[in-house]
């Protein structure tokens, strides 16, 4: 049966109600959407609530370092072709936020859930998903996150006995290693521009050889699994060999990769690529990302890039010179407090763009750009940067809290 209101025990119902009440209080107090506090209250009253809420849903989990919010949204849109969907669309991706999102969707058939990388194994155990999409793993918030390879190892151990169909990126050696212990894997050649977290074989530590798009370990023989789905330029090639054009409103190669993976997930539930892709075309922006916002008579396109892999993909989608570029970097708790990752980003890719720098850590960025030999201007705030920028749509690239600051500043 569809819907998850029927089978809940009185205690679970109480937990859901208490959680909703706490969320309402949190919202009224102006502390965000309340989804996390609501979920925390509910889980405290009924620790098994997440599992119970998921019992009568077909659950898809989505995890990665980058692209999980967007991919969750694309999969949700695709699956709406075949039934109601409940999803943590705003990116509250730890157990409390997930619980809160599921509690809000009592009539849904599908649960499409973004999961923080560190929590994937636990959530997969609780909700018995039908499918799990694994996109990529790379360095992120090194001052507090586990080491990247350790995350892959946790995925590998946690998912080894899963009954889910795992849809995994064959082009990311860490993801391939994590998924290769799963009984049922659909491999997608989704690409991965960033390669600097996978020069060592995740299995044996040997040096990976990477001729062209292929990769393999010369020591132990671990190699790229043969994909059944592939992103090929602007097309996704399905297992039957048919190439479907990807015509997203969302920009960039990485989003085409997200769409390819989403089409493969949709196919697990019987939604054909044509139907799935057409539904994805409706998505314009995801939690403010990619939004074009008018501000002070100018157009600003807001782009989120949280780590070196994300910046690399973002550089490849912005308008070419002379489009002005505004960069903002913070190093608060949610960003990671260590800014050394800025030196893993190849800022010479911005040569020719007028560059404007703001954010808490604008001086780190200034030294980085100076050493890259670029011209740039450090500004006090977004207003000064926008006033100083030459004509044209301004490409705004910011990391996590800097992005939130910018959205507030420009009224998005």
């Amino acid at each position, binding site marked *: 049966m569809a819907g998850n209101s029927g089978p809940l025990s009185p205690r679970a119902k109480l937990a859901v109600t208490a959680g909703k009440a706490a969320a309402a209080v949190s919202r009224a107090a102006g502390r965000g959407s309340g989804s996390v506090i609501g979920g925390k209250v509910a889980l405290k009253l009924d620790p098994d609530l997440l599992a119970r809420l998921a019992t009568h849903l077909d659950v898809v989990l989505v995890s990665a370092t980058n692209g999980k919010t967007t991919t969750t949204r694309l999969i949700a849109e695709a699956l709406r072709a075949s039934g109601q969907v409940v999803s943590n669309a705003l990116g509250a991706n730890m157990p409390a936020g997930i619980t809160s999102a599921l509690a809000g969707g009592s009539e849904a058939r599908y649960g499409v859930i973004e999961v923080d990388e560190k929590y994937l194994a636990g959530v997969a155990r609780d909700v018995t998903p039908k499918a799990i999409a694994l996109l990529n793993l790379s*360095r992120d918030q*090194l*001052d*507090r996150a586990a*080491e*990247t*390879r*350790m995350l892959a190892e946790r995925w590998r151990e946690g998912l080894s006995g899963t009954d889910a169909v795992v849809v995994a990126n064959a082009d990311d050696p860490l993801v391939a290693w994590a998924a290769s212990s799963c009984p049922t894997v659909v491999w997608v050649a989704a690409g991965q521009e960033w390669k*600097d977290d996978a*020069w*060592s074989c995740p299995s044996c*530590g040997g*040096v990976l050889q990477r001729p062209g798009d292929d990769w393999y370990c*010369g020591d132990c023989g671990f190699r790229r699994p043969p994909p059944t789905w592939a992103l090929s330029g602007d097309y996704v090639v399905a297992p039957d060999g048919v190439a479907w054009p990807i015509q997203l409103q969302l920009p960039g190669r990485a989003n085409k990769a997200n769409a390819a993976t989403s089409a493969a997930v949709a196919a697990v539930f019987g939604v054909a690529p044509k139907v799935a892709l057409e539904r994805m075309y409706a998505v314009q922006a995801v939690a403010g990302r990619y939004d074009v916002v008018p501000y002070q008579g100018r157009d600003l396109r807001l782009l989120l890039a949280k780590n070196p892999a994300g910046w690399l993909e973002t550089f490849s989608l912005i308008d070419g010179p002379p489009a002005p570029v505004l960069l903002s970097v913070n190093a608060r708790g949610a960003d990671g*407090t*260590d*800014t*050394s*990752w*800025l*030196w*893993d980003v190849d800022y010479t890719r911005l040569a020719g763009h007028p560059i404007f720098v703001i954010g808490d850590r604008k*001086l*780190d960025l*200034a*030294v*980085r750009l*100076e*050493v*890259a*030999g670029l011209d740039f201007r450090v500004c006090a705030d977004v207003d000064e940067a926008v006033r100083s920028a030459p004509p044209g749509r301004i490409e705004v690239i910011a990391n996590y809290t800097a992005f939130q600051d910018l959205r507030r500043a420009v009224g998005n």
Partner: protein
Amino acid sequence: MSETSLRLVWVYPDLLSTYGDQGNALVVERRAQQRHIPVSRIDVRSDQAVPTSGDIYLIGGGEDRPQRLAAERLRRDGGLNRAVANGAIVFSVCAGYQILGTEFVNDLGRPEPGLGILDVRSIRNDGPRHVGDILADVDERLGLPPLTGFENHQGNTVIGPSARPLARLRYGNGNGTGDGTEGAWSDTVFGTYAHGPVMARNPLFADMLLKLALDVHALPPVDEQWYEALRAERIAAATQQPA
């Protein structure tokens, strides 16, 4: 220095480049180029031989397993030891610093032999990880302004009789043994726990390496505006963070 250009060797970026360590190579390279010093950068992957004819070797930080793999491969290769025996300059950070020593504790919890080119020995501390801005006064023999950096490690490093502390801490944990020291050096071999990267926050360290390699006492000035602004900000941040 070789006849044509200064040879800057970056050791094992495939294993030891987790914390923006490329930045150290970029800053040294940039500050050489600004002085019209020809410099060629050689990135040596861990399945390649470490050249013995380099002038400056940089070795960075990494995770625990890659650190063990790097130590194994560097011991087997022997190139870095031979280069140091020839008088090469080595600047190492964090995991790389530990590898230069006589011994460290590897990812399996066992003692792992280092390269023995710096008289330090490292163990893993049982307490919380050392994470945050540090500030330290550099050994006066080196004639450098205070060291600012960002540490992120779980190592405790003891300095032996034939090496000296690189700096004395004002803020931060540094070598982590409670003796107030940060990093170590002897002759032309240097080690520190400071990321940031360290050269971006302490460009005069980069100049020191260049001066050693060129055997000169001074270099033409370069624009220090942004480095100075960043240093001032981070030094203030180190003094203001909770102990």
